[in-house]
């Protein structure tokens, strides 16, 4: 009998999903293969969590559409799901909070934190010490992202240092490489990331598949085909709803991104 205990994992991907593309979906598949290949993990669920409109990113269309497209794209998946909690919050929510929310959702009912605004859990308990979170009986939760997100940890005022520490220290990160980025080098160059390097799983994408949503939106504006870059159902939805026009790309053009607005001037601990 195998001496290793197999750890159950749920993968959470946060992002604009503006729109969701085949590349986003590939990331889940690659991450699952990679983790299960180690023999230590079993990936039981994937969650797509589109960001709320309050993020104020340029060209970000309404969350209701982004959610529906994500749902259509996962119709044919038996393990990837879409969650609307983040997108329904009135203010932008830090990624670390989203991670914590979903982690708490996954735990057996009687062990939930009391500061999460879910109505399901009536019992209030003291928050447990961070080091015990992974032993609460539920699956591990890891944040799934591209190498660009990892590197965004270095952008001033975009992330709180505490949040980065929580994500890599307490939960875990699965990072899919893109050509032109070297995650290992970036991890090596950050003391905090290097300290928690065992929690950062770097997955090499050998089949370069860099379908950027920005490019997809540009193609749509120019009346070009995006077929086979996105699932057919999503392409149809975009056509039916008339999404992604020159006008939609100008949304939030003169507005500051929510995290930058929130953190600039504030001291990062």
């Amino acid at each position, binding site marked *: 009998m195998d001496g290793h205990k197999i750890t159950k994992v749920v993968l959470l991907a946060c992002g604009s999903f503006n729109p969701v593309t085949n590349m986003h979906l*590939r990331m889940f*598949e690659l991450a*699952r293969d990679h983790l299960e290949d180690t023999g230590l993990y079993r990936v039981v669920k994937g969650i797509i969590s589109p960001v709320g409109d309050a993020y104020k990113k340029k060209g970000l269309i309404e969350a209701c559409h982004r959610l529906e497209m994500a749902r259509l794209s996962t119709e044919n998946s038996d393990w990837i799901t879409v969650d609307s909690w983040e997108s329904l919050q009135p203010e932008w929510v830090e990624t670390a909070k989203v991670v914590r929310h979903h982690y708490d959702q996954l735990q057996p009912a009687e062990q939930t934190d009391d500061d999460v605004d879910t109505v399901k859990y009536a019992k209030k308990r003291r928050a447990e010490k961070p080091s015990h979170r992974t032993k609460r009986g539920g699956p591990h939760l890891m944040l799934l992202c591209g190498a660009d997100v990892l590197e965004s940890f270095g952008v001033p005022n975009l992330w709180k240092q505490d949040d980065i520490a929580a994500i890599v220290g307490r939960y875990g990160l699965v990072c899919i490489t893109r050509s032109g980025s070297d995650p290992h080098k970036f991890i090596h160059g950050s003391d905090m990331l290097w300290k928690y390097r065992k929690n950062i799983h770097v997955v090499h994408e050998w*089949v370069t*598949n*860099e379908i950027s949503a920005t490019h*997809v939106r540009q193609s749509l504006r120019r009346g070009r*085909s995006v077929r*086979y870059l996105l699932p*057919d159902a999503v392409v149809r939805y975009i056509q039916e709803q008339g999404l992604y026009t020159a006008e939609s790309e100008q949304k939030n053009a003169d507005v500051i991104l929510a995290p930058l607005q929130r953190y600039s001037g504030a001291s990062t601990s």
Partner: protein
Amino acid sequence: MATSRVPLVLLACGSFNPITNQHMRLFELARDHMHSTGQYQVVGGVVSPVSDGYGKQGLVLAKHRVAMAKLALRSSNWVTVDDWESRQPDWTETAVTMRYHYGRILKECKQFTAAHNDDSSGNAVPLSTPSPQLKLLCGADFLESFKIPGLWQEDHVEEVAGRFGLVCVSRGGLEPERAVHESDTLSAHRRNVFHVREWVSNETSATEVRRALRRDLSVKYLIPDSVIEYIHQHNLYTRDSESINEGAVLRPLAKQPVKSLDD
């Protein structure tokens, strides 16, 4: 009065071993590009899988490659699969395949015209639409293949580039232009070689897909679900299948040059 657009059919020859989303993207990109020149109206696309006689390593049976292509293109309203090339007893030169399809397209066009254009007395009314054209749709690596000694007959390169024309889809960079520049024949017909840029790097190579399948890794979202299902049902793309034709000489390199047959 504006000049009529030339009706255009795009033909893609290749192993399609297996067909991938990237193959289907080539058609979409090429159609958009040729429309945007203002001179063409793309009326059809044809996927023509190579016959087993090609002898390429890892090439699974044509019947499977054709079936997978048909599944993948079920939902397309303009691209179809043609198995003529795959049914030929020996590997068929690209120029010969193009001749076959061009003849077929002309015939269909004449039949369509005859059915729709007779005036009341049964006389054929002359068409104002130009004659349809057939162009070869390919990636940048295909242009590189013209350089490989023994792979192409010179007069075939002339026919493919000169008589028909190429629509070459690639990522940014100057490799396709360089490939044209380095060949006298291609260069002479550079106005008949259309360069389409795919700025999204979407290099889902079938080789990588086969590799992933051998290793039991996911290929979902790289190829259509229906094709994945087919592959599993028929247990294609294993370590054994990759050994097919191992050590064999690629048929075009082995074949004696044949004088061009008249249509």
